[in-house]
């Protein structure tokens, strides 16, 4: 049963944020976090191997920022929905830039975890709907 759950990969440099996301997203038993990275380089490597259904990507990270990392994730995991999870509502510049770079969704860190979870599920269902 658990094996059929949609999988999520987390990429954020703050461990507490990853922990919170892991608990928050898995809370309802609809999603499974299959891996996490604290910076994009190893994140891209892992995502290539794990082929998650969704990637949650922070924008401000050391070594490489999220926007630079985004196309690399796309390349190694073309099936994955990529959700930028970063900044705050005021950062409209980021929103636009994130959209422009082809993220599937942009979620502010202000947003409640429930909303993030349902947005991911929505994206994945849309995928199934299109293909199925």
């Amino acid at each position, binding site marked *: 049963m658990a094996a059929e759950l949609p999988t999520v990969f987390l990429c954020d440099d*703050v461990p*507490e*944020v990853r922990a*919170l996301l892991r*608990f*928050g997203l898995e*809370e309802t038993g609809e999603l499974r976090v299959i891996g996490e990275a604290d910076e994009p380089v190893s994140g891209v490597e892992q995502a290539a191997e794990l082929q998650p259904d969704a990637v949650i990507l922070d924008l401000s990270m050391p070594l490489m920022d999220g926007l630079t990392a985004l196309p690399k994730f796309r390349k190694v995991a073309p099936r994955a929905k990529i959700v930028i999870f970063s*900044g*705050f509502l*005021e950062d409209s510049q980021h929103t636009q830039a994130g959209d422009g770079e082809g993220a599937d969704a942009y979620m502010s*860190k*202000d947003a409640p*975890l429930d909303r993030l979870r349902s947005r991911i599920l929505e994206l994945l269902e849309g995928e199934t709907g299109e293909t199925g």
Partner: protein
Amino acid sequence: MIRAERYDRRLRSARLAVIAAAAVTAAVAGVALVGWVLDAPALYEFGSSDSSTKVNTALCLLLTAVSLILLAQGDPAPRLRQGLAWATVAIGALTIAQYLFDIDLGIDELLFDDPGLSASPDGRPSEQTAVAFVLLGLSLALSTYPRAQAVRDFSTLIVGIAGGVALAGHLSDFSETEQVRQMAPVTAAGLMLLGSACAMLPRRHGLSGIVWRDDSGGRLLRLLLPLTILLPLSGALFLGITSTNGMVDGTGLLATLVVVTTIFVLLLARLADDLHHRDTERTRLITELDRGKIQLTEQAEELSRLNEDLGRSNRDLEQFASVASHDLREPLLVIEGFSNLLERRYGDQFDEQGGRFIENIGLGVDRMQKMIDGLLEFSRMGNKTLDLSRTPVADLVQEARDQLSETIRRSEAVIEVGELPEVECEPTTIAIVFQNLIANAIKYTDGRIPEIRIGAEERAGSWLIEVADNGVGIDPKFATSAFDIFRRLHPASVSGAGIGLSTCRRIIERHGGEIWVDPGPDGGSVFRFTLPKEPTVTEPAGAVEPS
């Protein structure tokens, strides 16, 4: 430097010319004297037997020439120079006395016997020559007295010009110049040389002080002086030559000409001196102006440096506020997220106290969240240019009321709005000011129903707008610090971040206005702020346009 050198060289040349003129005169006078000693008329008549150079004339020429040479060489023996000059004056004066009183003091042929072919009494210099020597002698005797400068200039010029005229009379065939011709040609030439040399000897004051100067006055005088003297005289002589029928009184005309020309020269000198003073004043002003300019430039540089510092520090502060608020938010979200998870998943396992703990975490997080929001808003107030437009203040109050509609409804606050003007302002931020002030008025009450009065008053160059409430009021000693960032004047049980008023101040100050708080007449507080009618937009120092 080059100017000064040129000036020095000119002075040296002038002094040399003076010495040369005096030396030539002295030599000729010496020859004449030798002629008298050796009884050789050829040496003192110089080809003109009807007006020979008299003994005393030759003597006076020699005395004054030596006196002038001494003076021109830096006056090494003032007593000798004065002695020679006074001797000349004495001879001249006695000669005049002989003419005036028709007496013979025996000075004319004291040394030598004059064979006597000339018009004047035997061996006696003419009246004009005598007067010339008195004037010349006086000038040389009094040469170092600055107060005698006008007399000196006048006398020497008269002598020089008169000598010139007499010489010209001899050279031309002017029938009316018998009087003039009484002066021997050699005497006339000598007087012309000595008079003009004495007048032009470089001095600190008077005509010769001006004529050699290296300024526009000096240049003007050097250019016009020869013309001023030569033009009228040559004109008159020409006139004299062409009217040989005696219609023109040559002597009177020439005497008048000499005096008028002299006066004219002196007036010209005065003009040149005036020009010199103007030049000096102008140079002084230009120097001062230059100094002022340099000072101004330095001050401007200092100001721009300070402004740069201020701009940098402003940008740093804004960046700090912005970064701090972002970075503070993330851990706060983690705390909030986990405390929510904790409550949701384990809430039923907590006892009553555990539930309160969780609740307190939530309250702390809320307060922190508000502070961060306020900080972010505060930092954003300073980093963009004001977007001014003419707006009715009543609209802005209404916007604030709309924003606060729920709070107002719940508190049952009564808001009274008086007549409000239209002002030039940035509507969005001034609305925030009203929003903060109204929210404060509602927040800080003694449990009474809030009553808020908003009004305006016209002042000289600005509008005074006030928001009065019936709240707890602000202790006057905190009236200023109430606007400081994170300054809270009320217990934390009243929710507030301590940023609202500092944001208000920042907004009003950026509009060029002021904000303060006064105690209300019946308790409560009155917040007052001014908005200039024509705001001079104070840009945030060193602001950078958003890219």
